[in-house]
C-alpha cells in the first residue's frame, strides 16, 4: 500500500460488492418472479436490471423479487418504488427494456411511459 488514494480506490471497488447489504432509503425495483413471471422471462429481466445498475455504479437502488400480482398476462412485470413510495408499474418487459428503464428512469428520473401498465393497457 503506497498511499491513501490507493486504499480509497480499493474501497470504492469493494463497496460496490457489499452495497447490496445496506437497504436504507433506497429506490426499489421489484420484479415479479412467480411461476407466471419466470415462464414469461422475468429472470433475464431481473439480471439485466442488476447488471445495468452495477455497470453504471448506481448505489441507491435495490433489485428485489416478489410473487404474482395477478396480472399474469402482462408478465414480466416490474415496479419501481422511489424513496417517497411513488410507484411506477412496468409490464411486458424484456432485458433491453429493463436496461432502458435503468437509464431513463433510474438515472435520469424520467419514467419510460410507453412501458407502463397504463400506456400498454390503453392499446
Amino acid at each position, binding site marked *: 500500500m503506497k498511499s491513501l488514494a490507493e486504499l480509497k480506490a480499493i474501497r470504492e471497488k469493494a463497496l460496490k460488492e457489499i452495497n447490496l447489504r445496506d437497504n436504507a432509503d433506497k429506490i426499489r425495483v421489484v420484479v415479479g418472479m*412467480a411461476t407466471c413471471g419466470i415462464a414469461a422471462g422475468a429472470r433475464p429481466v431481473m439480471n439485466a436490471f442488476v447488471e445495468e445498475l452495477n455497470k453504471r455504479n448506481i448505489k441507491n437502488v435495490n433489485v428485489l423479487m416478489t410473487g404474482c400480482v395477478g396480472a399474469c398476462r402482462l408478465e414480466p412485470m416490474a415496479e419501481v418504488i422511489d424513496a417517497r413510495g411513488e410507484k411506477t408499474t412496468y409490464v411486458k418487459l424484456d432485458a433491453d427494456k429493463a436496461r432502458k428503464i435503468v437509464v431513463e428512469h433510474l438515472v435520469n428520473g424520467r419514467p419510460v411511459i410507453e412501458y407502463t401498465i397504463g400506456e400498454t393497457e390503453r392499446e
Partner: protein
Amino acid sequence: MFYRSHVLVCGGTGCTASQSNEIIKQFEKLLEDNNIENEVKVVKTGCFGLCEKGPIVVVYPEGATYSRVTPDDVKEIVSEHLVKGRIVKRLLLGEKEAEDVSKALEDVGFFKRQHRIALRNCGVINPENIEEYIAREGYLALGKVLTEMSPAQVIDIIKKSGLRGRGGGGFPTGLKWEFASKPQADQKYVCCNADEGDPGAFMDRSILEGDPHSVIEAMAIAGYAIGADKGFIYVRAEYPIAVTRLNIALKQAKEYGLLGRNIFGTDFSFDIEIRLGAGAFVCGEETALMTSVEGKRGEPRPRPPFPANKGLWQKPTILNNVETYANIPAIILNGPEWFSGIGTEKSKGTKVFAIGGKINNTGLVEIPMGTTLREVIYDIGGGIPNEKKFKAAQTGGPSGGCIPADKIDTPIDYDNLTELGSMMGSGGLIVMDEDNCMVDIAKFFLDFTVDESCGKCPPCRIGTKRMYEILEKITEGRGEDGDIEKLELLAKNIKASALCGLGQTAPNPILSTLRYFRDEYEAHIYEKRCPAGVCKALLRYVIDEDKCKGCSLCARKCPVNAISGELRKPYHIDQSICIKCGACMETCKFGAISKV
C-alpha cells in the same frame, strides 16, 4: 460478476458447531441446480451474536433473517426465496408467524438496544476477504494516522476518548500507550491478549473470527504510537477458527502492503506474528503471557518493572485485549468526542458481553456503558426461561462476583461493578435463577482456579485449595461453626499476598456470594439444608403418602432400586440407597415426589 442477492451464513464457532458449513455447501449445490449460482453469492461471515438462535442466515437485499436453519431448510429458502422471491416466514427470526414482514436485523429486539462498535463488522462482512473490511472503512484509520498525525497526537486521541482496557482491569489505554512511548529503546513490542479464559466468555473469539483485520489495523496504529515495529498476537490453540482466520488476515494484509515495510509510503514498518497458547488460564495475566510468548513456561513475575518499561525480552511493550483494539480504528475515524459521548462519566464507549446461563437469548451483545442489568437480561436477553425468578448475575468469571437481584437496576460500568464487589472482567455474564445454589457457584469457580493456579506462589497454590476444601465440606453437609470465618480470613490473606491477578482475585466469588447470600451458607452449615435444592448431600427425595397412588412407575424408573412398595399403596424411598438423581420426581404423574 454482479450478484442480485447475497446470502450471509454465520461461520462463528457456535453456528459452525450446528452445521453452518453444511448449510453453505447445500446453498452452493442448490444454487447450481437452479442455475442461479451467478446471481446469488454465498458469504460466510463472523458471529451475529444471536448464538441461541443459530445457525443464522441473512438474505440481502431484503435483509430477511432466518434462524435455526438446518441443511434441510436450505432447499426451501432456495426454491421459495431465491428463485421466487417469497420469504420463508416459518424460519424468520423471532417474529410471530402471522407477521408478514421480514424485519431488518437491526429491528429485532435483540439488536435494537445494542450499539455495535467493536462488533461493527461481525456478521456483516466476510472475515476472510480483506476487501470487504476495506469497504467498511478498514485501514482508513491506519492511513490517516500514518499520513496525517504524529505518534503523540494518536496517543492524545486515545487518551481523550476515555477508552479503558476491555480485558477486565479497566486501565486507561491511552495512558498505557503513553508510558510505553516514553522510554528510549532499540526495540519495542505491541502485544495482543487473545488468551480468553473465563468460563462462558467468547467475545474475543468472536471478534477474531468475525473481524480479524480490526485487531491487526489497531495493533499497527499502536505500533506507530509507541514506536514499535513488531507485534505478537497470543491466542489459544483451542480457537481453531479464530487462528485460521487470523492467519488468512495477516497474509492478506501483507499482500496488500498494510503490514510490512514502508506502509502507505511512509517510514513506518510493522509486522505481526501469532503465538499459540496451550490454554492455561494464568497466561491471560500480562507477565505470564509475555513469558509464554518468549517461549518459557507461562508463569507470572512480580511487577514492577511494568511491561511499559520492561516487557517482552526486557523491551518496552504494550499489551491490550482484543476488544480494546477493535475499538481503536473507530475512535481514530470518528474522533475521541464521539467515543466519549457514549457511556457513563468514567466508563466510555461500549462493552461486549457474552450472556449465558439461565437466559433465553444466549449470545453476544454490545451495549453502551451504563445500560442496566435489567435491560440486558430482559430487553436484550429475552428474560429467563420457564418464568423463573432472577437471582443473581455473575460477571468477571473466576475473578469476579455476583450482582444480586435487588441491584438489577444498577447501570453497568467499571466503577459500579467494583463497588458491588464484582468486576467488569472480560465480559462473561452468567445469569442465575432461583434454582442455582450460590455456595455451589462459588465452589465451581474455586474448582476452576485451583485447577488453573500455576503453582508459583503458595498463597494461590495452597490457599485456593484450602478454600475449595472448605466449600466442598459445606456442600456435602459437613460444614461446621467457624467455617465462614475461616473462609473470610483465608480470602483476605490470599488477596493480599498472591503474586499475580489470578490469585489476588481468586477469592472474589466467595467474598461476593458471602456478601449477598450469607444466609445460604448458614443454611448449609447450621440447618444442613440447601435452599435451592442443588447440593445432593443435603437434600432428600420423599414421597407424599397422600398423593401417591401406588402405580409403581417411580420404582421401575429408579436406577438403584431404592423405591419399594405394594401396588395401589403408597411407595417409599430408602434414603440409604437413593443417589438423588431425580428420575422418580420427573416420572411421577401425580406430583407426589418432592425435594426437601
